[in-house]
């Protein structure tokens, strides 16, 4: 066990910036993504979707579509069973509506045909009779008594009696005496906030190629963050054995949490089974927006009390999140994360999940946290402004630290928040001059980070090279990081190692690429698999030398006798041991399987300067700096990349991105023209300051870095806007029309 824990060491390769192993494929167009594969005899599938926000399906007549030339199979909910398990049933119902359509874009039928044109033509021939029902898409409206009920009887036991049936989940966290705390404050501010749902906005639409054969075997090629979880879900919904369904993760064109859940893969498999041919199913961008992904939308109240010298005396948040038409518990994470940055004597967070006629929520980078922390950091900033206090000093004064009882219960171990705040305070950005209509804002961010189920195999080839087989799709350069850690541990050059992502038949179960877990957990398993291989190589060397295994050590990529008593033998390198492996006992491989814990929470601080155009209400980001603790940055370029990418997604969330529903309950902006994600000309460079405060739970001190970066921008920009033009924006996005309206109201 001792080796699990962090040990201080001088790194030789970890911390360098070698080229990624998939680089050439990706710059030459050779990398194979979800939509890039084909199969012999392949059919093309299309999905028919509901034009209604909420309706009962009276009947579906597919006869005319079936008669169309080229059509080989049609499926509806009738082709699937009804899973007993609530979670599985929701997943399936989200993939294919059963009895009722619950949102605009909900799938009702799917066609596989010889051409895309034939499949599209067939969709037009399917007759669906709907009886439309009243709908609700707004979280506050859905909570009111008498609101249209999205699904009846779905509330958990924890929901207090008397609430709308749309309220499915309630949570409460915190400690201390709120009343006493608020009484100690010199000022108490309470504000209401509302945020729109956003989409992960991955550029690659969801795509898969399914092939089910008459002997019950199946192959699924799919862009996913977790081939194993997709296998679990698809096998359960199709009544297959896991061993018979091999899922291969394609290169993935972005996910950010959105590709941790199936949307149409079981439909492609069902079509393939029915048609007896491979079926390719690629969503359009319109379908991606209407039926995959989005985050929760929220309505929140935050109340904070502060003394005039900046000490927070009590804090409370009431969070209502809607995760669409299905029960959802993302509010748990929002509620736990809300005040994580603060050391508080009295804190309470209350959360409710509310169903609305919107697509089922999927994870998006630190799910639930950006919203609640936006609200909290906005109120903290307002208090700082009121008292004329320095916002960084106030955060330092109240910052959680080792030994702080966190707002969600546990006492923090080593965390990097104070160091991060101090780094921001010392940075020239914090004191740089500002011009008219310009403002500087800051916000803390937080994410829990996870470890999870992980398997790694490490094969020592006879030519002295090494193959690492892992099971997590590489979403941002992780193969490079994994190779670096293997190289470091084995003591051989990075270039001698090739890391690949296995299909589900080639390696044991791996959790999805989520929770910022891959560099942490797969890295840990890789280091341990390398140590397993090293033990075996030391044993071979011992046999060759005729000494005890215990008398051999591994130093700089070679077995050496441990101390003078072990005997005098020249070091045997990995390549030398590998070359004679057949003669000394056979192939050498290291393995490690674990459900990793100890990921270590992550804090970040963002500083941003903006300028508001008072004529248009448009906000331009002028300067942006991210400060975040990475534990140990294995490949600093990709750590920076995570921070920059997360920050820009948060900037988009703050300024422009939103799901806009009409009074008819239909999504009005299901395309990149109207759902505006940040483009290159919107942005400055995103500067990064990586702090390295070792995570005690990882041999190299690694901490997940992927998610925290999306959290602070929402409040950092709102706070900057407030300081620039004196209006406090309590609704996201702060799009130009909304900001202009607020400026006009202020006068």
């Amino acid at each position, binding site marked *: 066990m001792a080796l699990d824990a962090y040990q201080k060491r001088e790194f030789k390769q970890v911390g360098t*910036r070698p*080229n*990624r192993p*998939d*680089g*050439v494929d*990706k*710059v*030459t*167009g*050779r*990398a*194979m*993504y979800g*939509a*890039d594969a084909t199969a012999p005899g392949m059919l093309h599938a299309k999905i028919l979707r509901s034009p209604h926000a909420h309706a009962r399906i009276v009947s579906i007549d597919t006869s005319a579509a079936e008669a169309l030339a080229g059509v080989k199979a049609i499926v509806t909910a009738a082709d699937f069973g009804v899973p007993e398990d609530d979670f599985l049933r929701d997943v399936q119902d989200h993939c294919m509506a059963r009895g009722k359509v619950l949102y605009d874009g909900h799938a009702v039928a799917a066609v596989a045909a010889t051409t895309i*044109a034939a499949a599209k033509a067939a969709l037009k021939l399917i007759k669906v009779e709907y009886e439309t029902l009243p709908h609700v898409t707004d979280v506050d409206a859905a909570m009111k008594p008498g609101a249209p009920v999205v699904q009846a009887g779905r509330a958990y036991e924890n929901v207090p009696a008397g609430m709308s049936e749309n309220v499915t989940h309630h949570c409460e966290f915190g400690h201390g005496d709120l009343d006493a705390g608020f009484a100690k404050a010199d000022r108490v501010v309470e504000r209401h906030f509302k945020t729109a749902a956003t989409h*992960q*906005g*991955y*550029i*690659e*639409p969801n795509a898969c190629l399914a092939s089910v054969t008459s002997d019950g075997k199946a192959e699924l090629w799919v862009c996913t963050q977790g081939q194993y979880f997709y296998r679990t879900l698809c096998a359960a919904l199709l009544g297959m054995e896991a061993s018979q369904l091999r899922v291969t993760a394609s*290169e*993935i*064109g*972005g*996910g*950010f949490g959105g590709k941790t859940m199936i949307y149409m893969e079981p439909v492609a498999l069902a079509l393939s089974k029915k048609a007896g041919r491979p079926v390719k199913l*690629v969503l*359009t*961008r319109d379908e991606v927006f209407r039926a995959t992904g989005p985050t929760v939308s929220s309505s929140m109240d935050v109340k904070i009390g502060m003394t005039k010298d900046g000490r927070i005396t009590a804090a409370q948040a009431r969070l209502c999140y809607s995760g669409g038409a299905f029960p959802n518990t993302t509010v748990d994470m929002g509620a736990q994360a809300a005040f994580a940055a603060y050391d508080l004597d009295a804190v309470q967070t209350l959360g409710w999940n509310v169903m609305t006629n919107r697509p089922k929520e999927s994870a998006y980078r630190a799910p639930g946290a950006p919203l609640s922390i936006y609200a909290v950091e906005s109120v903290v900033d307002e208090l700082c402004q009121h008292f004329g206090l320095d916002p960084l000093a106030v955060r330092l004064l109240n910052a959680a630290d080792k030994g702080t009882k966190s707002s969600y219960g546990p006492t923090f171990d080593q965390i990097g928040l104070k160091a991060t705040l101090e780094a921001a305070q010392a940075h020239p950005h914090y004191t740089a001059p500002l011009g008219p209509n310009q403002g500087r804002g800051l916000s803390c961010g937080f994410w829990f980070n996870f470890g999870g189920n992980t398997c790694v195999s490490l094969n020592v080839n006879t030519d002295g090279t090494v193959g690492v087989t892992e099971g997590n799709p590489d*979403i*941002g*350069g992780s193969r490079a990081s994994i190779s670096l850690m293997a190289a470091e541990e084995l003591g051989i050059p990075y270039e001698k190692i090739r890391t690949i992502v296995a299909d589900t038949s080639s390696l044991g179960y791996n959790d999805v690429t989520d929770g910022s877990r891959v560099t942490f957990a797969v890295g840990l398993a890789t280091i341990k698999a390398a140590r397993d291989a090293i033990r075996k190589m030391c044993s071979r060397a011992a046999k060759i030398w005729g000494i005890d295994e215990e008398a051999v050590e591994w130093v700089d990529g070679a077995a050496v006798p441990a101390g003078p008593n072990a005997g005098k033998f020249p070091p045997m390198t990995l390549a030398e041991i590998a070359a004679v492996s057949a003669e000394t006992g056979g192939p050498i491989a290291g393995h490690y399987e674990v459900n990793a814990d100890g990921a270590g929470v992550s804090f970040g601080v963002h500083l941003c300067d903006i300028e508001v155009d008072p004529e248009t209400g448009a906000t331009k980001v002028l300067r942006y700096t991210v400060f975040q603790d990475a534990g140990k940055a294995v*490949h600093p*370029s*990709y750590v*920076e*990349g995570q921070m*920059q*990418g997360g*920050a*820009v*997604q948060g900037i988009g969330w703050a300024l422009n991105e939103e799901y806009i529903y009409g009074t008819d309950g239909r999504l009005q902006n299901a*395309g*990149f*023209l109207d759902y505006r*994600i*940040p*483009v*290159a*000309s*919107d*942005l400055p*460079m*995103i500067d990064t300051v990586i702090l390295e405060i070792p995570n005690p739970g990882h041999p190299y001190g690694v901490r997940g870095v992927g998610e925290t970066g999306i959290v602070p921008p929402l409040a950092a920009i709102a706070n900057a806007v407030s300081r620039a033009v004196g209006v406090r924006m309590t609704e996201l996005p702060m799009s130009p029309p909304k900001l202009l309206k607020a400026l006009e109201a202020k006068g």
Partner: protein
Amino acid sequence: MKTIHVSTTINGDPAEFICTPDETLLDVLRNRLGLTGAKEGCGTGDCGACSVTVNGRLVCSCLVLGAEAQDADISTIEGMADGDTLHPLQRAFIEHAALQCGICTPGILVAAKALLEKNPDPTDEELRYWLAGNLCRCTGYDKIIRAVQAAAAEMRGA
């Protein structure tokens, strides 16, 4: 639907295909010619993942019909490297970690190359506005801008 026979040049080589009148150049490249380097991110000209050049002009191939390729000179990502020698832009993208998932990379490389052919020394602002039609969701564009400028500097020096 009646198909159309098209003769064209792709990455310097003669190519022929048939397509329907409503088929896009992107669909032809991907589905008929096996050139899947151009990606479909939206199909409506908003994301730039399908960028190619037609007679030297940067276009979204999802907004061009296959039939329009008759007698044209088309360049795609597959033709950017010279054999096994990467174009300076391609090399710079790898060396500067200017890609994460890589789905936007082919389109951005094609677009950046088209810019540098017209303007070998763009300012950051010119570059950002030129690339405003190419969406990247992973990187925040920072490393993309740095990589293109590094390649541009190298190409000017060469």
